[in-house]
Structure formats: C-alpha cells, structure tokens
C-alpha cells in the first residue's frame, strides 16, 4: 500500500480478517470495515481511524478505574466461569493493595471445588494478607462475616472469591444472586465492585457470559485474563458496546505481579501487533 492510496478489496479483507481473528466477532468486524469503505478512508489514515473507532466503542462504557477509597471498606466480589482466572486475579490484586499499604482480607468463597480454598490460602501467604476460610461454610455467610470482620478489625479491602460457574447453570446463577444480595444488604458506606473475570482466550460466548452475569449480579467491572497468550481479548468491544460494561483490569501471566490496570490505548495498540 503506498501512502494515501485507496484501499483495495483484498486489503479490506485483510483488515476484516485481523479484526475477526482478534475475537471482535463477525458483526462488529464487518461493521467497522463497512465504515472504512463508506468514509473512503485512505491507507495512511487507516490505523488512526481504526484506533479512534476502537476508543469510541470502548467509550460506550463509563470511563472508570477500579473503585477505591482508602477511607472506606472496599469490597470486591469476583465472579466468572470455570477456569477464567478468578482465584489467581484475587492473589495479584491482594498483593497490589498490600504493597500500597492497605489492610486486605481475602474470603475463600469457593467452598465447592477441590483444593479451591487451599489455592487461595497459598495466594494469601504469597501476598502476605489475611484470609477468612472455613471448611463446609456457606459462601453467603462467609461474605457476611467477612464484612463484619472488616468493620471490627479495620480491613479496608475485602476480596471475595466465588466458585466458577457456567452462565447457563440456572441454580448456580441463583446461588450467586443470593451471595450478592447478602453482600449488598451488608454494605453501609462501603464501596462495592462486582468483577466479572473473562478468559482472554475465549470467543463470542464471552458476550453471553457477560449478559447473564450482569443481569444476575450487576457487574461493575470486567477483568480480562491470559492476555500474555496469543489471543487479543477482542470480546471486550462488544461487551462495552452492547452492555456498557467497563474493562478495568487485565491479567498478563501467572505471577503475582502479572496484573495491570486496563489502559485503552495500550490494549488497542496491541491489536495491531
């Protein structure tokens, strides 16, 4: 392509391919390419135009960072499907808050899966934070007691793990609603962030996940993991567009420091790599 040249049909196909391969989904990819054609974008304008379009799509969601006020109790309720990376994200987030001088309490809310509590316990030791865990406990009552503890013992960060669940499992989603209701009733002047953890390697089913989880427990933040792999996590675009949910965190590895605040420009630039 020579600078300022008109983009030809093959090149439009390449652009569409890049978008589809980044998991933006066929509808959004086709829509963006149609826009390029309608506006007769020249090849030299291509990248800046696309970048601006991506920013516009993400701006359908509120432009927010992860809620945090050091003078309040900040509660983070972490949910998502099986294996998405919830427990690992909590370990990383706990470490980050601890390094910033906060007093953190983890809640081993996955009382179902083999070794789930032990896994979070190991992360709590790595991050050097406290953990509330109890064999055979009910997740909702653990969350309730954790918030009580936080008030009495001056924790200002409480991060609640939950068991992975597929969005089409009616009973499991109902259970999650119950836990959320208990948390919501217990909140006084505290901050609450309900974080949906999405596996960055997954495809279009992620939109369906976000829809169901949002309808069930009011998601306030998306965390997208495993972006250290080859997938680009393009599903967050249709989530921002359709559900107006903001992405606030990204996971970029299995180590305790492999967590970053979501940055639109960095994320968008990575799409072109």
């Amino acid at each position: 392509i020579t600078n300022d040249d008109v983009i030809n049909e093959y090149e439009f196909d390449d652009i569409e391919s890049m978008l589809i391969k980044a998991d933006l989904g066929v509808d959004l990819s086709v829509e963006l390419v149609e826009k390029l054609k309608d506006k007769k974008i020249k090849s030299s304008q291509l990248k800046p135009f696309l970048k601006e379009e991506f920013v516009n799509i993400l701006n359908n969601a509120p432009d927010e960072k992860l809620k945090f006020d050091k003078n309040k109790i900040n509660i983070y309720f972490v949910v998502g499907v099986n294996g998405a990376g919830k427990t690992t994200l909590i370990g990383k987030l706990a470490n980050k808050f601890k390094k910033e001088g906060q007093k953190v309490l983890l809640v081993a809310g996955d009382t179902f899966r083999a070794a789930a509590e032990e896994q979070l316990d190991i992360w709590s030791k790595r991050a050097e934070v406290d953990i509330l865990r109890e064999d055979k406990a009910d997740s909702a009552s653990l969350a309730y007691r954790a918030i009580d503890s936080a008030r009495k013992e001056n924790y200002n960060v409480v991060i609640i793990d939950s068991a992975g669940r597929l969005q089409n499992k009616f009973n499991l989603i109902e259970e999650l609603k119950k836990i959320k209701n208990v948390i919501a009733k217990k909140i006084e002047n505290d901050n609450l962030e309900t974080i949906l953890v999405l596996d960055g390697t997954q495809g279009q089913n992620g939109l369906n996940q976000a829809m169901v989880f949002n309808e069930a427990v009011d998601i306030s933040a998306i965390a997208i993991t495993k972006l250290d792999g080859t997938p680009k996590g393009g599903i967050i675009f249709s989530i921002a567009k359709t559900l107006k949910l903001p992405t606030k965190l990204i996971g970029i590895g299995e180590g305790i420091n492999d967590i970053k605040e979501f940055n639109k420009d960095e994320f968008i630039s990575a799409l072109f790599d």
Partner: protein
Amino acid sequence: SLSEKLQQIIASTGKNSTLTDDNIQDALREIRRALLGADVSLNVVKSFISSIKNKVVGEKVVESTNPSQTLIKIVNDELTNLLGEKQAPLKLDTNPSIIMMLGLQGSGKTTSAAKLALKLKKEGKSPLLVALDVYRPAAILQLKTLAKDNNIDFFSDENNSDVVDIAKKSLEHAQKNNNTVLIFDTAGRLQIDSDMMAELMLLSHNFKINEKLLVVDSMIGQAALEVALDFDEQLGIDGVILTKLDGDTKGGCALSIVHATKKPIKLIATGENIVPLEDFHPDRMANRILG
C-alpha cells in the same frame, strides 16, 4: 437459526425459490457468519465455504425443490464428515500405558484426568493419576482430592520440582501397585512458552507416551487453530479432549482443531462432577455448531 436465515434468503428471490448465483452468494455469506459466530477459526471457515461452494455447484442444489433444506443438509453433512469418525479409541496397548494431559491454563486437564481414570476403571483398567503440575498453588492437592473422593490410585512427590523424576518414580510405583495405565496431569501452559513446551518434550522423550491428549476449553475463540497446530507441531498430539460442553458455547473450535491437525477429538467433558469422560459424536457437534 441458520436454516431459517437460509430459507429467507432463498425465498427473497421470489423466483419459485430456486438457488441463483446471487442468492448463493448471500447464502454462503450467512453460513460464513454462522460459523464465525460459532468461533470456527477464520482460515478454516474460508476453506469450508469454498468446499461447500463446489458442492453446491456440483450437486444440482439449483434444481432441488427445497434448495434451502438441501443446502443445510450439505453444510451439516460436510461439517459432520470433517469432524471425524465417531469414537477414535485410545491406543493403550502397552503395559503399562501412559496418557499425558496437556493444554492451556484452566482448560480442564486436572478434572478431565480424574474423569478419564473413572472411564478406564469402568473398562477394567487400573489407572494411576500422577501429579506433574509442580507450579500451580494446590494443584497436587486438587488431583489428590479428586483421586481420593473417587477411589482412584494416586501418585505425587510433593517436594520434587523435577517432573521427569516424579514421572520415573510414578512408573516404579505403578509396577509395584499393578497399575496398567498412568495418567500424567501436567501444568497449564502457553504454546508460545518455550521453557514450558520443552518440559513436555522432555517428558515425551523420556517415556513412551501412548496418548498425548490436548485438553481444550470449548469456549476458546479464534486462537483454537494456532494453539492446536502449535501444540501438534511441537509435540505431536494423538487426540483432543473438548471440555465444558455443558455450557452454551457453540464450540466451533472443534472444526478448527480437527481440520487443522487431522487429529481426532477422542473424548468430551460435560460437567464439573467427576463422572467418566464421554465419547465424541461428530453429528451432535455439527448440530451444535450450526444450532
């Protein structure tokens, strides 16, 4: 659904609902859209569409009395054929045999290892679950718990970080314990992580592994193609286990993986509870993808 959309396309030409050059293009575009929406990888979709196009031209769809139905049948049949023969069995013909579970992080290897052990037990084998994930917090405890809860023999070497050494010891244990099949559960890894891929190659060189099974989360997106190809090219996989099919994802990765690697999907997982892994049925998968 795809069949409804195809019916609309053909009906919209108004010409006694026959298939013309124009609406064939529209129909193919709709099929492409359905496959991409189902997360079939783009390059696989392109080659699938071109083979469908040849079949449409070659099979007198144009003269059929119900072109949209004929078209859907061609697509479904082609998809079913590509997804492979029903029930490609596990080749466990040595004593003992070794199965190695491998794949990306969180795909369901540990859970599937226990389910595979149950399946083998039902078939009269004596499986030994071997914990070779020395990285993930509580990974060994996770497999140990699943083994204990389901009466499956288990081997681990808790303070050993050398997977080849642990595997050697597990073989010795298997001999003493009369286990006929060892199932190696390995850590999740990225196919682009050369150190972690080297670990799998080391295991592969040190032991005769009868079945290297790539465990894939059925929700995986476009990356399915390159992930499967990469694991296969670096290690050589014998088959695939597709997990979390109790979800509502279309699972188009099944087509990408089989089409690209020519390796079969041997088993599927459809839930969190430890029950025997089930056989893969290509016709059911085709219906699910086109749903």
